[in-house]
């Protein structure tokens, strides 16, 4: 098989911003905890597959300097919210970008990757695989988003791929070693994207030569559809530049394998870096309330003092990525968007993108009874929440919630950064917008 035109050039990983103690959660659910796994990441009340996908893509863009205009196409795996494609594209400032949505399965994540290596759009492909773990068993499924940049030029090359169906009676280890054999001459390194503890051992038993790296599920837990790609990035870390390695993704019905040739992995972020990020520790009860928070609000009917969905989406550039305005007469920067400059009512206003950086100007914590109805599910799940008036570095101020593990410590003067989050769910529709996290988090 000929080399594909593209290579993997960079990656970014974002994890859910809460940690859940796995053994305690298992006890809570009368379930059996995976051995050795003490904590796992889960999505916060204001995170879902859409926000995690946006966070991972923005991180990838920040790491590589890739401008939104430079994205050729978007592949989404696991971002299964209604209109997630539109929301994500809009949040990135590229409502016109071609988006392909894949099934929300680990196998689909592999398919998407292989397709991206052979695809030739106008610009590079950004592939994101995301799991918020919210609908799954909280013991096994964790929250993570992996964003990959795949395009022409030098990077990690895909040499060959192979796959095979596995009958129920077959031994998985044997099937995996056959797939590896199908990839050509044996190579030294094999990475197994474990979905269940023991998958890698099954392969090692059947094929004892070579160094086998397992996906780091022993440290992160199963990350759902993101697991195969997290494993791939972990495998990359184990090989030298120029070396080849095999990537194996076993599942109940298939084994997929692919051979890669490593290049410098500097631009590839893997799980270890992400695991060092800040997170809020959550007790099992809160974890389950967060999981269920929005479920009963699918059919809650809006009562009236709300911004209609039509209007909301019309304002998406401001709400999703803080697109402000500049007065062409006095130069004043305005946000939230206005119908006219307060000082020059007749002057024309032009679009002005804002950095999202600012400082806390005033803050409070909303206790029970102090929240508008649409934020009641959030309070029921996580109790109080902090709200601030933030002074943006471009001048304007805006009211927004504070989020993230350091939110409770933010005070007047603290530097903050805008993040894209789920605000609330009303009449079955998720409303997204910005909140602020501590800039040091």
């Amino acid at each position, binding site marked *: 098989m000929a080399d594909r035109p593209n290579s993997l050039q960079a990656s970014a990983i974002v994890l859910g911003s809460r940690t859940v103690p796995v053994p305690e959660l298992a006890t809570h659910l009368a379930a059996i905890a995976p051995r050795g796994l003490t904590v796992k990441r889960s999505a916060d009340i204001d995170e879902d597959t859409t926000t995690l996908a946006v966070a991972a893509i923005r991180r990838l863009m920040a790491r590589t300097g890739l401008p939104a205009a430079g994205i050729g196409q978007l592949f989404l795996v696991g971002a299964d919210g209604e209109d997630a494609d539109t929301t994500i594209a809009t949040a990135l400032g590229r409502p016109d970008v071609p988006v392909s949505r894949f099934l929300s399965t680990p196998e689909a994540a592999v398919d998407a990757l292989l397709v991206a290596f052979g695809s030739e759009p106008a610009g590079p492909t950004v592939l994101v695989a995301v799991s918020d773990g919210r609908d799954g068993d909280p013991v096994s499924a964790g929250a993570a988003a992996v964003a990959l940049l795949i395009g022409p030029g030098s990077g990690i090359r895909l040499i060959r791929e192979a796959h095979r169906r596995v009958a129920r009676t077959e031994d998985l280890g044997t099937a995996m070693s056959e797939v590896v054999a199908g990839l050509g001459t044996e190579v030294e390194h094999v990475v197994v994207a474990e979905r269940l503890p023991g998958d890698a051992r099954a392969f090692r038993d059947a094929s004892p030569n070579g160094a086998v790296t397992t996906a780091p599920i022993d440290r992160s837990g199963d990350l759902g559809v993101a697991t195969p790609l997290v494993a791939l990035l972990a495998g990359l870390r184990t090989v030298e530049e120029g070396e080849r390695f095999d990537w194996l993704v076993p599942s109940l019905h298939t084994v997929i394998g692919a051979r890669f040739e490593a290049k410098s992995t500097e631009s590839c972020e893997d799980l270890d870096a992400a695991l060092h990020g800040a997170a809020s520790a959550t007790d099992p009860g809160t974890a389950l309330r967060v999981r269920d928070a929005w479920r009963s609000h699918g059919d809650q009917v809006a009562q009236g*003092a709300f*911004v209609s969905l039509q209007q909301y989406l019309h304002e998406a550039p401001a709400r999703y990525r803080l697109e402000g305005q500049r007065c062409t007469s006095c130069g004043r920067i305005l946000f939230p968007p206005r119908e006219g400059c*307060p000082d020059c009512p007749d002057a024309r206003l032009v679009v002005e993108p804002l950095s999202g950086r600012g400082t806390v100007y005033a803050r*409070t914590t909303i*206790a029970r*009874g*102090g929240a*508008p*109805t649409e934020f*009641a599910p959030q309070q029921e799940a996580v109790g109080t929440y902090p709200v601030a008036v933030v002074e943006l570095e471009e001048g304007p101020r805006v009211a927004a919630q504070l989020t993230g593990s350091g939110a409770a410590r933010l005070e007047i003067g603290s530097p903050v950064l805008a993040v894209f989050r789920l605000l609330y769910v009303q009449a079955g529709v998720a409303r997204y917008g910005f909140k602020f996290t501590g800039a040091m988090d």
Partner: protein
Amino acid sequence: MTRRRVYVIGAGQSRFGDRPEGPKALFREAFEAALGSVDHPEDFVRTQIEEAWIGSLGFGGQQLGNPAALLMEHVGLRGISARRVENACASSGFAFRDAYRAVASGAIDVALAGGVEKMNDLSPDHRRYWLGVSGDTEWERLAGLTFPGVYALMADRHMHEYGTTKEHLAAVAVKNHANGALNDKAQFQKAIDLERALAAPTVCDPLGLFDCCSTTDGASAVILASEEVAKRATDRPVRVLGSGAATDHLAIHDRPSLTAIPATGKAFAEACRESERDGRTITTDDIDIAEVHDCFTIAEILAVEDLGFCAKGKGGPYTASGATARDSGDGPAVNPSGGLKAKGHPLGATGTGQIVEVFQQLRGTAGERQVRDAEVALAHNVGGSGATCTVHLFAREVA
């Protein structure tokens, strides 16, 4: 254009609180109290009222459309021109202003201004929803804020800029509850001490339960008349010296400062200018009584600063010093009625409810809470967190 002198000849309110009656009954109670306060009923009949302005937010959405017509038919005024006036919590402050201007202009001789709100018959969910309809619904509310949160942000900033403390905030609540304890129309007629105020659960940090006004059912009504009518109807006329009103940015984050409500100063200045044109100069030193909009304790601190009773930033220590207590001798009596804090805050009924207190105080009929020798009084009514505001000045006049 010459402006005619305008007098309040009658004013009354329903008992404020958790009331089982509907808006019609509450308004009738207020209207009858107003009518009953007119000195010479033989020289004044209700049918002299030519037009009415009724403040109401329409909390709960009950009879949101056309409530003024309905209320008129239940107080024997069916047929007259009437309308609902809506400017959130300042609704009846603006209703009064419009009624005042109609009489001042000579268009009519007698006007009715009033307000009504029914807030306590809703589910907690429904109530939370309605408490958030008067802020900026497009951005502020989507940050998860309602008014306790917005005023908490103002308090946080005031503490940061001026060193205001929770004790300063609590001093407002203690004073107003002490006044409310003497008001048989008040929702809360019990004094509280500083310790109790400070120990209350937090609503929105730094504001605790006693820093926030309650939800209240109630109504109020004020009868305004030209000089000619007033002379016949009353021996103790209360003159409206001036009316001021202003608007500002709706959203808290759009204001240059979080520690002032500029609409207050603007409205007060306009009211003073109006009085000045009529030959009577009024400064803050002349004010004996100020009914100010203390929906939260921080709001009274901002009000005493923005009205100039004390220097900017000193509202906390100024209040804690006792200067604004009744008969302190050090400053005006602020909220002798108990204020929104203790008397209650039935949104649309609050503005004219404040004028009921001013009317009684200036006529010496305030009973146990009577402020000595009160001659000039002010009513300050704020909508939302300062997007709308009215200030009215009144004076006792010897007939």
